[in-house]
């Protein structure tokens, strides 16, 4: 089995999919971080021009906000939880003041998270699809499926080895996305920002996602949290793509169908968000990271746990159908 998985990983690598993905990634990340840096500098220039100051006085603004928060938390009428969340923000702002960090500067740690948040519904699934779509279909189009299936190896093992190889490459790809976004954006921003505190409603608490109260965590933890969600979504998308590519025979149509589903799904969600069924479609549930930033509910009744459950069901279903289809299939190429 290990040998089979090694073969499959080698095929993916030799097909030069990774360089293609890397190039796409570098282009996007480069453009985005350049753009963000440019927009930031322009904003500051504009601010300075309007206020007539020579330097952007972030300390002033931050202190102002601090005072406001402290004043409000003195108010006896404020409920306990809200006061707790004020305290978190105060703590956070104090960190910026004490460490002389401008809270609105773009940093690599912020960029890699916002890239993941933006990419999780379309761009990252596209990269995964490039990887997964021809895993099986290319064996059919090159007819090499015949040599794979006429060895003394049962069909399910052949497919399983491909699936495991796909999981390995998907995991690797998520790492690559994280590292590339961080390094490339650092080149532009010259700030890491991984130890800055961030207020979040979610924490990974003893392995489970805890959303009872807001807390303050360092950015690197938040990045890890976001990227575990990206990884989860990527695995789901990879599993679904595998099924599509098994059914349609060519990788181009597999990528096409997946893209149509992703874009069509967003339309559905946009136009028919009060239609109950929409929330059971996998595309509606892909945007896991948005749950972490406030009370996101694309369709009524959805939550992080709900989405994770729905996505898992889709992936497990896809894998099960893939194995059944692959086992029964007549190879007539």
């Amino acid at each position, binding site marked *: 089995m290990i040998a089979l998985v090694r*073969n499959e990983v080698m095929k993916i690598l*030799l097909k030069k999919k990774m360089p293609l993905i890397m190039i796409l990634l570098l282009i996007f990340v480069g453009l985005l971080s350049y753009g963000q840096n440019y927009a930031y500098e322009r904003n500051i220039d504009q601010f300075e021009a309007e206020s007539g100051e020579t330097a952007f006085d972030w300390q002033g603004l931050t202190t102002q906000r601090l005072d406001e928060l402290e004043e409000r938390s003195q108010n006896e009428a404020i409920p306990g939880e809200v006061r707790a969340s004020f305290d978190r923000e105060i703590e956070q702002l104090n960190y910026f003041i004490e460490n002389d960090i401008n809270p609105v500067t773009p940093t690599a740690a912020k960029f890699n998270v916002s890239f993941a948040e933006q990419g999780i519904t379309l761009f990252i699934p596209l990269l995964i699809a490039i990887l997964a779509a021809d895993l099986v279909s290319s064996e059919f189009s090159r007819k*090499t499926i*015949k040599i794979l*299936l006429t060895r003394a*190896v049962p069909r399910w093992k052949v497919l399983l080895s491909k699936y495991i190889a796909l999981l390995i490459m998907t995991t690797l790809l998520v790492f690559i996305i994280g590292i590339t976004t961080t390094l490339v954006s650092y080149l532009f921003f010259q700030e890491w920002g991984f130890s800055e505190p961030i207020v979040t409603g979610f924490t990974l608490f003893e392995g489970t996602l805890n959303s009872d109260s807001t807390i303050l965590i360092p950015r690197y933890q938040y990045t890890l949290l976001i990227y575990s969600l990206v990884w989860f979504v990527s695995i789901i998308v990879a599993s679904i793509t595998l099924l599509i590519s098994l059914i349609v025979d060519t990788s181009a149509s597999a990528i096409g169908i997946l893209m149509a589903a992703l874009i069509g799904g967003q339309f559905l969600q946009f136009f028919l968000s009060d239609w109950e069924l929409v929330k059971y479609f996998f595309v509606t549930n892909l945007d896991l990271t948005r749950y972490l930033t406030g009370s996101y509910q694309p369709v009524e009744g959805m939550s992080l746990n709900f989405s994770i459950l729905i996505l898992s069901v889709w992936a497990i279903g896809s894998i099960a159908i893939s194995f059944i289809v692959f086992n029964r299939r007549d190879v*007539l190429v």
Partner: protein
Amino acid sequence: MDTSVLKVSHLKKLIQKKLIIEDVSFDIQAGEIVGFLGPNGSGKTTTLRMIVGLSTPTSGDVEICGYSLKKEFVKAMSNVGCIIEGPDLYDYMSGYRNLELLASMSKDVTKKDIDEAVALVGMENRIHDKVAVYSMGMKQRIGLAQALIHKPRLLILDEPTNGLDPQGIHEFREIVKNLAREKNISVLISSHLISEVQLMCDRVSIINNGRIIRSASIDDALVTGEVVWTLDDPQKAQLLLKSTFKVEAAIAGHTLRATVDPERLSEINNTLIASGFDITYVEHKKRTLEDLFLSLTDKHTI
């Protein structure tokens, strides 16, 4: 014990509700080279696909070295090497990588086995080049090496010489013949070329429109049952054959020809000699495989 290396019984296959294979049965013994002869579209590839498990028969069984393909796929397939409408290679890898890849799919295939297979098909010099730059003949050799690295007892080749030049065909044929002779590998080789089957095979099964219409050794397939005597007095012999053996014989010059059961031939010859005829030749008339093939398949409608 049944010593068949391959036993195919009553295969039937429907594809999209069309009956492609009606009833195909045959078997192959150790070390035999069997030709699977039939015109294009007669169902050779479809049958071979079912034998190697690429497609499932609608009904019927395949047994390889005593293992049922359906029930013991892995054990059955560990005895088979095949090229089905191939060769199929990953053209973005070298020939050697292709072999390594398949070697790792079988148990106990060592690097030495790979090197041996490469040497056997005479590809030592170009084995590390990318498959994309290989000629058809070289690809076919790699395909053969792929089918041989795990030392199978049965080799299944589907029209292996398609696309090869005469030189390549000749070399390929010699390699396959040697395999059967020296390693006792059984070979099932499909072809629409009569000469190829006649040159390589011990036995032939002829398929037409999804049915086996004749299975026999090459020699038997060619015997017509017609015997030709060259002797001094054909007219007198003709009468003798008619009166004693009730055989109608025809005269042509100094020869007499008749259709006789081979088992009665020595009795007839003894009688002729005892009656004082001077026999110079007795031969059985062979037809060409082509005649047989055409006579069996000329009814076909496409």
